[in-house]
């Protein structure tokens, strides 16, 4: 019991050191939990939401002359599971509403909003389906242009005709890349608006889903042949990756980068634990010898220091694990907003808890193990004896000889220079930690600056002002 009081007091008396290690481990555990939980939730949620919108296996773009009968014909083709035609218009939208600033806008016209087959566009709020002269904005685009229901937007066709449409609400089209990433704005109208604008009502985009996912390419060629068979060109065939949202790679990239930072942070925590524990054990070498001298067995003393690290890890986990749930929730919400899907609910699982506890407890224990085992393996007589033959430090050898050449150094300067080299192992460890942390920091800052510089050079090359 008494030895546990020692553990407690050692931790309490050196509060700043204790807090430093706890925070250091906690950062690693937090980061790993945050990444693990958000990755699980984001991937699962994006996949399920993407599947729920019934993505097509192929998108074929042609001139706006396909009609309902043609689409029905494709639907009835052997091997085709579902097909739907839509009309899209590439327009410009004035962000200021006065025609001074223009951005790209794709306006989709659906024949029947209540009979969508593929790439389902879900109603969010407002008048649904839109009526003549009304537009539903994709929800990410709505935020991007800062419009509200009831606002009028000014749009311009390629031949310069301008129209005002009334925003009546929002829809969610998961397949469309949000304007914060791509800069493209999406709106949804019905066919009567097209007529009002004097545009053709035929579909120019065909979505097709096949019965056999392995035959996508062959079947798409057949569908393209059908289109070309009626004398229309096929401008583009897009084959989305089955079951994978087009922006899945962004989540993967983001999580891989954050995962690397988490692993680096855990690595640095481990290095810090080694450093602090080795400093602690060096400081307590005499106490270890005393404990041995008064009957403490090696495992009892080793147990004290392992318990110390275990307690630090446990406190770190107690702080980091609940925070990582909130963090994962926030990160997942942020990522979902960027990709434009509904934020997933973070599920706190036993697996996640065990993994975080494993990392938070085992990594520091494993990191500190060699230091503890070596440090507690002291011979009491060597440490306690004051006659001290073995206590004399032999000098740094080469360093001493080098320093002796600099006559300008005072004794205290020489002492200060020699001191760090007394414990070379600890010196190397400190240097590795500092170098690594510095390298990570500099790499991130350099990367940011390099990217900025590269972009500036690129813009300089293109030389445009607007």
């Amino acid at each position, binding site marked *: *019991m*008494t*030895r546990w*009081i*020692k553990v407690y*007091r*050692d931790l309490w*008396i050196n509060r700043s050191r204790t807090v430093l290690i706890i925070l250091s481990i906690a950062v690693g555990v937090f980061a790993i939990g945050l990444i693990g939980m958000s990755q699980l939730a984001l991937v699962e949620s994006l996949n399920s939401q993407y599947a729920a919108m019934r993505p097509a296996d192929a998108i074929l773009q042609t001139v706006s002359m396909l009609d309902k009968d043609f689409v029905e014909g494709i639907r009835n083709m052997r091997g085709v599971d579902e097909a739907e035609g839509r009309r899209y218009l590439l327009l410009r939208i004035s962000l200021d509403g006065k025609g001074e600033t223009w951005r790209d806008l794709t306006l989709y016209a659906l024949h029947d909003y209540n009979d969508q087959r593929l790439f389902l566009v879900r109603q969010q709020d407002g008048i649904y389906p839109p009526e003549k002269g009304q537009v539903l904005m994709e929800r990410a685009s709505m935020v991007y242009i800062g419009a509200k229901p009831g606002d009028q937007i000014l749009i311009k066709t390629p031949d310069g005709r301008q129209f005002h449409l009334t925003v009546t609400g929002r829809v969610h089209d998961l397949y469309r890349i949000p304007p914060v990433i791509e800069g493209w704005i999406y709106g949804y109208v019905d066919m009567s608006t097209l007529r009002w604008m004097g545009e053709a009502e035929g579909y120019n985009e065909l979505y097709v889903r096949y019965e056999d996912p392995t035959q996508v390419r062959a079947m798409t060629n057949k569908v393209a042949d059908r289109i070309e068979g009626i004398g229309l060109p096929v401008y583009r065939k897009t084959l989305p990756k089955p079951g994978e949202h087009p922006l899945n790679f962004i989540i993967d990239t983001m999580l891989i980068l954050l995962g690397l930072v988490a692993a680096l942070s855990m690595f640095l925590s481990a290095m810090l634990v080694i450093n602090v524990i080795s400093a602690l054990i060096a400081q307590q070498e*005499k*106490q270890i010898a*005393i*404990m*041995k*001298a*008064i*009957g*403490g*067995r*090696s*495992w*009892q003393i080793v147990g004290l220091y392992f318990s110390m690290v275990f307690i630090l890890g446990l406190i770190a986990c107690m702080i980091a694990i609940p925070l990582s749930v909130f963090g994962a929730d926030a990160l997942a919400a942020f990522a979902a907003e960027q990709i434009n899907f509904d934020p997933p609910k973070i599920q706190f699982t036993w697996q996640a808890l065990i993994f975080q506890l494993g990392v938070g407890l085992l990594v520091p224990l494993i990191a500190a193990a060699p230091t503890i085992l070596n440090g507690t393996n002291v*011979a*009491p*007589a*060597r440490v*306690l*004896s*004051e*006659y001290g*033959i*073995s206590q*004399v430090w*032999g000098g740094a050898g080469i360093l001493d000889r080098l320093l002796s050449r600099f006559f300008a150094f005072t004794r205290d300067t020489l002492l200060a220079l020699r001191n760090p080299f007394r414990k070379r192992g600890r010196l190397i460890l400190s240097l590795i930690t500092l170098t690594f942390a510095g390298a990570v920091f500099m790499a991130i800052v350099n990367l940011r600056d390099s990217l900025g510089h590269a972009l500036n050079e690129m813009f300089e090359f293109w030389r445009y002002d607007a």
Partner: protein
Amino acid sequence: MTSLNASPLIDLNGVKKAYKTDAGLFLALKGIDLHVNEGEYVAIIGKSGSGKTTLINMITGLDRPTEGEIVVGGEKVERLGENQLAIWRGHTIGVVFQFFQLLPTLTALENVMLPMDFCGTPAFTERRDRARELLRLMEIEEQANKLPAKLSGGQQQRVAIARAIATDPPILAADEPTGNLDSKTAAAVFSLFERLASLGKTILVVTNDPDLARRVSRQLHIADGLIVNDVNGNGRKRVTRNKS
């Protein structure tokens, strides 16, 4: 108190200890033969560097001989492993150091309880009472809840002595226990040793102070790693047994 016919409690035969130094091999003990019987109060006297601390470290098992045999309480000390040594030391021999060596984050009472905790004796419920009793015996009970930093040198050494006898070992070995104390406090510490000797403990005390050394039942004079003189408390010379 001394049983002449029984086997000695401490028995050293041809004990040598060599240290490797940058200057070469240094022989700290050059073949010591020593027999100490139960209940003896022995002072080990010698100049600095004579080998007295090395000798006490051999007896307490804190260091290992390069050559020779050490039997303490019937146990061949040099053959014990680290853990066995710790267990053996906890039950057989209490150690007192010149610089007290109390654990700074534990109170006086907790310092005394620590060996009991390590050795698992006495029973958990009795430890606190025993520690208080020992501090009372050392006339320092009122300081029980103070950290070592709040105690004077003499008080710390009393706590250290109480800690050394916490598990009731038959032998108490003290390495210059008064070397860091003023003469009055040193005399008080020796009085405590006398009291413990009267209670049947075998006591080995390393000292430089000839006045204090006169208060013991036996004096061993060490010089250059050899016992050069072995006298009784009454000043009569004993047979000195060295192997060089």
